[in-house]
């Protein structure tokens, strides 16, 4: 297994945790940042900090150019046009933007919205609210125990009253990746739109919105080696043009009188108020870094790690794994439980060994109910994860089973 990136690019990974080597295995919650991202943000704050789009002086022009440059980088990363890239706080806000601006303008009583059983709460609750408000129906496509969307059921639920299919591109529990192109083709045949929650997907596999043929894509920079507090909504231009604004205020307007206002061009129509310019710059640097590694290489690296970890985990007595047991079918995330050890206890015991994993319901409570568990442990990988991290985790699990036995 060849490593795709240098661990030394990520300063935080040099930390010692409780005196131990640090094995960070919670990248699905948030990924760590390479030094190029930290530098780009630092440089912005030291040299170019000014409000964007507002000042007629050098550093404001620089700030604007850097902010808009970041937009171009993110656009190129997903094969979109820059004016289709709306900066938000995170994927959650991007999804809410669609639910409020597009949803409130388009969903009426009797319509339906389709989601899957494995959605993150971010891609479930906004649609619950919208459906309740509009007396529309929220339809849920089941997933198999392996985390595959049951396509037969999806086809059955899809009707001419379906307005939107909202689906995660990669499950944060199973790591499974529904066939978005197939879903989009079926949905479009019924004139339904497709929103992809790309929070996990875009960090781990190449994404081309044109090839996928979907309509909306939500991203969070912090899952993609970028900073927290910045995300993106991508949508097809026609859709953004037709949508009313979401938040109102400065920057999103063209002309304002005391009684009325007209809207700015895309994408600024959806970016009210002073933006997180430094975050956007960090996001731009992060996608540059990922592009340099090559998303194909990233995927291969993480697939090899996943295969390795699955094999090791299966050798520990009492371990159950949720989701596919083949690395080909999933991203670098493994939800599991160890018999007799509550995932919280496991996470605490692993932390003592320098290993950071997640425990809990992973913002997917309906899925936990389906499996009849309260919570699971979860390890997840990124470009900087190594076999050594996994070995350290496996050894710590073995040790934990002894403590709790």
């Amino acid at each position, binding site marked *: 297994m060849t490593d795709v990136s240098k661990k030394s690019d990520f300063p935080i990974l040099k930390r010692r945790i409780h005196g131990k080597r640090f094995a960070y295995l919670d990248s699905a919650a948030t990924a760590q940042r390479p030094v190029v991202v930290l530098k780009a943000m630092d440089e912005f704050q030291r040299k170019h900090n000014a409000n964007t789009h507002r000042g007629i002086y050098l550093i404001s022009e620089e700030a604007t150019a850097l902010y808009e440059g970041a937009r171009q980088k993110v656009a190129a990363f997903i094969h979109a046009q820059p004016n289709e890239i709306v900066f938000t706080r995170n994927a959650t806000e991007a999804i809410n933007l669609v639910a409020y601006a597009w949803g409130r303008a388009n969903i009426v009583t009797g319509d339906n919205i389709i989601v899957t059983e494995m959605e993150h709460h971010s891609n479930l609750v906004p649609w619950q609210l919208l459906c309740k408000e509009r007396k529309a129906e929220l339809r849920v496509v089941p997933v198999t125990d392996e985390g595959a969307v049951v396509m037969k059921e999806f086809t059955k639920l899809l009707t001419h009253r379906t307005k939107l299919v909202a689906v995660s591109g990669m499950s944060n529990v199973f790591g499974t990746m529904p066939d978005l192109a197939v879903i989009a083709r079926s949905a479009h045949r019924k004139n339904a739109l497709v929103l992809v929650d790309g929070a996990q997907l875009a960090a781990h596999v190449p994404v081309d919105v044109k090839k996928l043929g979907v309509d909306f894509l939500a991203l969070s920079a912090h899952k993609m080696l970028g900073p927290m507090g910045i995300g993106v909504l991508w949508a097809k231009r026609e859709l953004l043009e037709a949508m009313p604004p979401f938040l109102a205020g400065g920057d999103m307007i063209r002309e304002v009188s005391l009684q009325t206002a007209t809207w700015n061009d895309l994408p600024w129509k959806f970016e009210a108020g002073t933006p997180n310019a430094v975050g956007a710059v960090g996001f731009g640097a992060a996608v540059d870094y990922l592009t340099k590694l090559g998303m194909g290489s990233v995927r291969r690296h993480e697939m090899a790690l996943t295969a390795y970890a699955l094999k090791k985990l299966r050798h520990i007595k009492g371990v159950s794994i949720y989701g596919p047991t083949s690395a080909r079918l999933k991203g670098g995330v493994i939800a599991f439980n160890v018999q007799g050890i509550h995932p919280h206890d496991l996470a605490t015991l692993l932390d003592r060994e320098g290993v950071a994993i997640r425990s809990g319901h992973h913002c997917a409570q309906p899925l936990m109910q389906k499996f009849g568990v*309260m919570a699971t442990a979860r390890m997840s990988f990124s470009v900087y994860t190594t076999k050594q991290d996994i070995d350290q985790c496996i050894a710590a699990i073995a040790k934990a089973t002894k*403590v709790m036995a």
Partner: protein
Amino acid sequence: MTDALYKATILDHHKHPRHFGTLKRSTHEAHLENTLCGDEVTMQFKVEKGKVIDVAFSGRGCAITTAAASMLTEAVLGKSLAAVKKLTSKDVDKLLGVKVGPAREKCAYLGLETLHKAFS
């Protein structure tokens, strides 16, 4: 591994929780869930003449949740209602013999919160 949090007394209460089960007749009871992980605790009390004369708890949880709730049941049995109502998180820390730290406070104090809910 010697680990202050997973020391013998806590593991013992986890594996053999005291007063685990339900009371046929209780005068006070409450149920609470830890929204973080879905752990849940039900506590039941039988109070007579201002004293806790019987107690039980049930639910499911991690070692810390279970041990803390179990220790709490031992601590309140036979105590006056007034004393029980005054119990604080510091008392739970004392029972556990360790401060669990911010990440596990919700677990450690779930039983205590349930107790206070029962008597509120």
